[in-house]
């Protein structure tokens, strides 16, 4: 494969036919200023050096690569984990919030707002906000506030305020709507820290740039350790930031297969899915055009995934572009297979992966057997699973509430 991908979206924020800016006028100037600030910051070595310093000292980068030797029995391609689970706060999300917080400070903003589903991005935003002394307000669906009480408390510990969102389905989608609304209401002093490569331009672009450290590191580490490029790179896709982050390191290496793994939930052919690229159609959600899980009227569908971080009806526009161009392929793993991979990775490798990441692992296990020993598969282990232990225990009827 050698389809050339664009380095950045075009001036209007498009990756091919995906992306753009579909927001109320009240936010247009803020987005324009953000784009301007991003351009300037990205051209400023001092910006990157502060960002890299924080990634090193605060986040704990580089994250290691790790050969998961006991994951697959029989002849198979080695599976290498890129260990975003060892980051401060336990997932890749912090790479992005650190970058956006630096942008916010550069723009003179004193307040960060964020949407969150399971709470991971909320925690990552609250974290950097605490470190930088900025006010943080997090919008979270009322249903999720109930389900993820631990992360809610963690955000409070970090000094953030969590606002339960009562509108719509009272989950991540609505929390995102609410964050946009709140931004519209206080756009002057407020920076909206979006949690994935979604939203209106320039968000999909800038979030990708803050996550691409994953791919850049991984490529160098793999070359150093194995003396060759991987055959395949696998990452789970919710909004798509961890996947874009690692893909970015390999997208120009035409021989490297890129695989995005969506959450099939109860199955891609079911209503209960979160696999936007596999089961959705083109639409506009949260400010940009991309694949969306929606009905024929453009009403966004309720989604389901065992993993809160993948339980989102949209996906970043660049993924839609990579899908249509064929440069990346998108598959879906259902709840049961993800759960099995979660347990298998814990028992065989001593690593409890995030349920999100477990989707990528489940697919990589199959791929490894298919590829055989000549392959070399990199899986982005986007986060640790401590946050999911309660969910899994509850599914199994174990009482671990004490």
């Amino acid at each position, binding site marked *: 494969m050698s389809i050339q991908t664009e380095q950045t979206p075009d001036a209007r924020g498009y990756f091919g036919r995906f992306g753009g800016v579909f927001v*109320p006028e009240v936010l*247009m100037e803020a987005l324009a200023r953000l784009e301007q600030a991003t351009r300037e910051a990205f051209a400023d070595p001092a910006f990157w050096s502060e960002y890299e310093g924080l990634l090193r000292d605060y986040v704990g980068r580089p994250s290691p690569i790790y050969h998961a030797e006991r994951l697959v029995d029989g002849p198979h391609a080695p599976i290498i984990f890129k260990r975003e689970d060892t980051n401060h706060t336990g997932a890749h999300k912090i790479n992005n919030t650190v970058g956006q917080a630096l942008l916010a400070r550069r723009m003179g903003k004193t307040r960060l707002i964020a949407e969150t589903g399971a709470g991971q991005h909320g925690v990552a935003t609250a974290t950097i906000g605490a470190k930088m002394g900025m006010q943080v307000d997090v919008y979270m669906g009322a249903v999720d506030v109930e389900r993820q009480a631990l992360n809610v408390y963690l955000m409070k510990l970090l000094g953030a305020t969590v606002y339960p969102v009562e509108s719509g389905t009272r989950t991540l989608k609505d929390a995102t709507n609410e964050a946009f609304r709140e931004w519209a209401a206080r756009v002057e002093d407020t920076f909206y820290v979006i949690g994935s490569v979604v939203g209106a331009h320039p968000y999909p672009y800038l979030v990708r740039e803050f996550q691409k450290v994953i791919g850049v590191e991984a490529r160098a580490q793999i070359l150093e350790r194995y003396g060759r490029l991987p055959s395949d790179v696998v990452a789970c896709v919710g909004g798509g930031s961890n996947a874009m982050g690692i893909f970015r390191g390999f997208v120009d290496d035409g021989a490297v297969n890129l695989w995005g793994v969506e959450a099939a939930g109860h199955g891609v052919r079911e209503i209960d899915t979160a696999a936007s690229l596999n089961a959705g159609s083109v639409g506009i959600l949260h400010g940009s055009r991309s694949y969306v899980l*929606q009905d024929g009227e453009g009403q966004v569908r309720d989604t389901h995934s065992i993993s809160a971080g993948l339980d989102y009806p949209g996906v970043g526009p660049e993924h839609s572009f990579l899908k249509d161009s064929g440069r990346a392929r998108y598959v879906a793993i259902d709840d049961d297979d993800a759960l099995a991979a979660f347990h298998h990775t814990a028992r065989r490798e001593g690593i409890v992966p995030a349920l999100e990441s477990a989707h990528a692992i489940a697919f990589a296990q199959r791929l490894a057997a298919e590829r055989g020993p000549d392959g070399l598969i990199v899986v982005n282990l986007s986060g640790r699973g401590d946050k999911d232990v309660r969910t899994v225990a509850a599914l199994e009827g174990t009482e671990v509430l004490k």
Partner: protein
Amino acid sequence: MIASGGIGDVFARARAERRAALIPYVVAGDPDRETTLAVIDALTQAGADLIELGIPYGDPLADGPTIAAAGQRALGAGIKFADSIEIAAQARARGAAPILFFTYVNPVDHYGAERFARDARDAGAAGAIVPDVPLEELDAFAPPLRAAGLAIPLLIAPTTPHARAARIAAASSGFVYLVSRLGVTGARREPDVGWVAAEIARLRTTTQLPIAVGFGISTPAHVAAIGAVADGVVVGSAVVDSYAGSRGDEAAAKVGAYAASLRAALPSRG
């Protein structure tokens, strides 16, 4: 007297009456089709000049909780995009004030812009506001509506720079919709009357179009203040709220009384 379907006439008539136009907003199908029709009749009788008819959408990025909840009620009642258009057609047939749709880009995309333009025109609607289509994305969406003779008022926000505001005004048709304060629809914050007045004065130097003001206008006092400087006053969440929880004639009576109070507050201009 039944008003004509054109927005130009709406503002012309109001101007002739030396007052601003009153533009209430309701959601189609909230809480059901019959109530909406009764509400539109009542608004017309109470002196509404133009009715913004929201097409219910599950993810209304520009709307606050009141209108979002109204949309959920309508969706819960099974209202489809085509139903909203049909409600408009029926209302117009019953002699309602001119109707302007308020909808979002994704449902319009799915319905199809051409089909929407045709059906809206056939329903006798005056135009459509699509708040999440900014100037930059207008070309992919507006041409069929314009071709069908529908007005597309665009929004100008307090954050819009002057040069951009002029471009938005130039691309608008029917009127220019000035957002009275930061944020989304809903009555949580007061409109900034001073800023509105100054902004209108500035806009008048660049556009001939009428200027309507909306967002956060919820009391007769607001209507009086804004009506003194604008060509139109849009009242949304407060209208929706005025009959929330009621249906049919009861809803119509409530909203009619409320609209009449707003209408009475409209100041006469020299």
